[in-house]
């Protein structure tokens, strides 16, 4: 019996490189191999490509080219924002770092690092839907605040955070506002002319560019201490010979994501809602995390009481369906989700969470097959739990 094609439902983890992106990058792995810092013609050719990539990426943020810097990805952007921003402002007597308990570890661990360097860590509460509380944010953002970092879309639940309001609160307090937009880019209109954010981190591989490249937006005039020291590339903000090919690919991926944003949203949203409705209809006691909040269209995080994510992920994978759960530690074992526990989700329910994330590889056929298969695997897992 031929096996049915496997289904990739983990686009929030990573996405395949788009053909257009690969095509755009190819020359830079071939004849246009130059170092953009070189003065000769090879250097000039690479420089031209890099400059153009920067302009095009900047346009995707509604920004000027000098406001965009290329990084190795989301984690570097988050570190650069939190530590680079805080280290400058602590000199001005602003000791507090405000963030939320549902941030990506790249932000949370950077905040913890800053705390070791003397920062006062303030985490804003989230409600049961996984939305950061604006009331609590008002209480925590003050004249002592150096920087506020809150993600635009949560990677585990897809819940959209009130970034416009948080950015405005932060600016009113005279602090720097950073948002991790790794999940939001290509879903949300991220426009520096409309929202007063100062730093934004974006990752390439979540939007069809390669792994190892990211874009970092820095509003003009915002103080930033670099993480790396070396040459004068990128105005010294990010020394090191630029990854020209990946920067070109990222710019192309960003343009495509912006162009397709609204259509993509509508399409994913329809499929996600269909999947969610089918699963909830077949598993009435399933818990959809973030339900009731404003959610991005590509994430469905669902817990079925009486099951555990570890077993379900194995069973799903062996049946050909790729999903994920909470954050995986370095060894690959699953640890309880800090996001769900911050939302007050009961431990046994949090430990059953399965995140399905839709994207370019998702079709209605995939959705319908998962809508059949998932409840069947759940029934099996529960039968066993009941029998045990």
């Amino acid at each position, binding site marked *: *019996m031929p*096996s*049915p*094609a*496997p*289904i*990739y439902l983990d686009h929030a983890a990573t996405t*395949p490189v*788009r*053909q257009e992106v690969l095509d755009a990058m190819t020359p830079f792995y071939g004849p246009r191999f130059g170092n953009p810092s070189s003065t000769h013609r090879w250097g000039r050719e690479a420089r031209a490509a890099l400059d153009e990539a920067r302009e095009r990426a900047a346009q995707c943020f509604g920004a000027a080219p000098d406001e965009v810097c290329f990084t190795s990805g989301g984690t570097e952007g988050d570190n650069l924002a939190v530590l680079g921003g805080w280290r400058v402002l602590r000199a001005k007597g602003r000791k507090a770092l405000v963030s939320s308990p549902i941030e990506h570890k790249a932000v949370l661990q950077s905040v913890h690092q800053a705390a070791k360097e003397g920062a006062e860590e303030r985490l804003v509460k989230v409600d049961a839907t996984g939305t950061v509380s604006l009331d609590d944010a008002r209480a925590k953002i003050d004249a002592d605040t150096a920087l506020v970092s809150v993600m635009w879309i949560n990677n585990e639940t897809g819940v959209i955070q009130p970034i416009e309001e948080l950015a405005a609160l932060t600016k009113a307090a005279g602090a720097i506002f950073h948002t991790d937009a790794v999940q939001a880019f290509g879903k949300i209109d991220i426009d520096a002319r409309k929202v007063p954010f100062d730093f934004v981190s974006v990752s390439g591989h979540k939007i069809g560019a390669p792994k190892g490249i990211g874009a970092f937006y820095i509003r003009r005039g915002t103080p930033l201490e670099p993480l790396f020291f070396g040459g004068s590339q990128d105005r010294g903000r990010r020394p090191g010979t630029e990854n020209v090919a990946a920067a070109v690919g990222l710019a192309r991926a960003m343009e495509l994501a912006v162009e397709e944003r609204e259509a993509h949203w509508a399409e994913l949203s329809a499929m996600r809602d269909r999947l969610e409705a089918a699963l909830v209809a077949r598993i009435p006691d399933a818990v959809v995390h973030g339900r009731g909040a404003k959610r991005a269209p590509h994430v469905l995080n669902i817990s079925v009481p009486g099951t555990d994510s*570890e*077993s*379900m*992920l*194995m*069973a799903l*994978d*062996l049946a*050909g369906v790729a999903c994920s759960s909470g954050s995986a530690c*370095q*060894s*690959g*074992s*699953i*640890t309880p989700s800090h996001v769900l526990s911050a939302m007050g989700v009961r431990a046994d329910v949090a430990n059953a969470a399965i995140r399905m994330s839709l994207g*370019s*590889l*998702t*079709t209605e*056929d*995939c959705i319908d*097959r998962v809508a059949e298969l998932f409840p069947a695997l759940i029934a*099996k*897992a529960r039968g*066993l739990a009941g029998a*045990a």
Partner: protein
Amino acid sequence: MNRSCVSDTELPSSLGASTRTRVLVAMSGGVDSSVAAALLVRQGYDVVGVTMKLFHDGGDVPDRPCCSLDSVNDARRVAESLGIPHYVLNLQDAFGHDVLQDFVAEYAAGRTPIPCVRCNTFTKFRDLLHKADAIDAAYIATGHYARVADGRLLRGRDDNKDQTYFLWGIERAVLERMILPVGEMTKAETRAVARELGLLTAEKAESQEICFVPDGDYVKVLERELPADAPALAPGPIVTSDGTVVGTHDGFARFTVGQRRRLPGGSSEPMFVVALRPADRAVVIGPREELLGRGLVARGVNWLVAEAPAAGSAVQVRIRHRSRLVPGTVLRVDGTEIEVALDEAVNAITPGQSVVFYDGDVVLGGGVIEMSRRGLPVMAA
């Protein structure tokens, strides 16, 4: 853009639907379980590898036999080379409760536990079996040197490696679902297979220590897990069996029956720890003949055969890993408690250790030693 559920690149071979029998194999990253997995693949099973994360190693014990990142990586690399899926399972909570806490409680109660027995009973052959159920695996396999035939547990072919001493606690019904591929082989043969297959774990050193005990120093674990004022780690008297106080010690849990090291000198003959007495925190010492036992009482007895030995049955008895089998007789069985007389005196029958009963190669069952019965002292050979 080409839209399909599938990326157009090649897919892992493991994703194909299969009618082959699925086996979940516990891969520690060592050579035995690596070879176990390889043999199952060779035999045509649909093999799924898992590595259990049992405790948080804090990153400061890099050479642990299992659970460290290195071991997980080794297991994963072997699985990759065999072309089988591999998962890391987080069983830290259950292991902490079923194994670690018991380990600490036993030492605190003056006994010398074997955590590997409880790990096999609860973690591997109960909790991991539930994971096997969830993925429709008919069997669970490990790299133990033991054999299963006709629903019975048999000693491994390699007498030096036989691990049945640690397997007596598993539920009997589980035997039918166990495959122990290296049990038919000697350790040398296992290594030879590993080399032949080019497994990267082929030359890996033997793991003899308890996986969660750094540098073999179990007291460190007790000091970390027990309250600072725990009686087991507080000073107490060293006494002889007639009650004479001959010194003081710094915590009875730092001693084990049969130990000679760290005892006061001055006796005319070598003195050993012969008992630990939590009630008055005493470490009881005596000459070699006081270590000898002619019988024992065990609790928590589990049987792996349909017809458990009754009072009067002749059995072969092992009271320590790899020790010689000693003939004995069951004196009484009360539920899960058993009393056994031994035909000859045995050295250092230690509360907390296991007693395992055999009939030739067949493992009948076992229990946890509660106390030694001295009977008539017999001079050591």
